């Protein structure tokens, strides 16, 4: 299992802030995103604006994820 955290507008669109997904070793962020968009279709239109983090660091969509990792779905940041 991996834990997926959603923030800001992405949490709003998904209607949840945390999702557990059963994944196999080495699955990519791109694949995780496809699963998320299937589970929560309202997320799909945000695709091009989102960034992702794995275990608290920005990661590219082709990065691999392992069971136990924490994935975060990050809309455009707006701090400050």
């Amino acid at each position, binding site marked *: 299992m991996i834990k997926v955290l959603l923030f800001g507008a992405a949490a*709003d669109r998904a209607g949840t802030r945390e999702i557990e997904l059963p994944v196999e070793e080495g699955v990519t962020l791109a694949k995780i995103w496809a699963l998320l968009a299937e589970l929560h279709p309202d997320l799909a239109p945000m695709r091009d604006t989102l960034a992702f983090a794995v275990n608290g660091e920005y990661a590219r969509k082709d990065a691999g994820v392992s069971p136990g990792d924490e994935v*975060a779905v990050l809309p455009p940041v707006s701090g400050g």
Partner: protein
Amino acid sequence: MFTIVEEPLDVGALIQDAQRRDCGAIATFVGTTRIDVSEGAAVEYLEYEAYRPMADRKLAEIGAEIERRWNVRHVSIAHRLGRVDPGEASVAIVVAAPRRGPAFEASRYAIERIKEVVPIWKREVWSDGYVWVGSQVGTRDQASGFT
């Protein structure tokens, strides 16, 4: 030196902590809640959330970048979470340096980087709904992103 807090920021204390005998300049930037008015509605307050501890670590990384690039002796950044009322401070950046040029440049750099890389989000809560800034997602009619 790099903090994310729920309480109002005490900018005066942050500046006092930055006073050093080997520095001649302290440049401070404070971001405050600016109230827009449009189409008969107004922003009532902002609400911030963060992905922690990634956000804390990104603030510290910005501090480290600054210390590599400029001759500065003190950098502190404080960011607020939760509800921030109109005119209140949401972020404070304090940089002390021997000379003023680097202090100014570094404080400017810090706010630009915060707005690029620190996982913090705000939504504007209007009298008629809210909008996530940057995503334009929310419950206002004007929040038309991704419809």
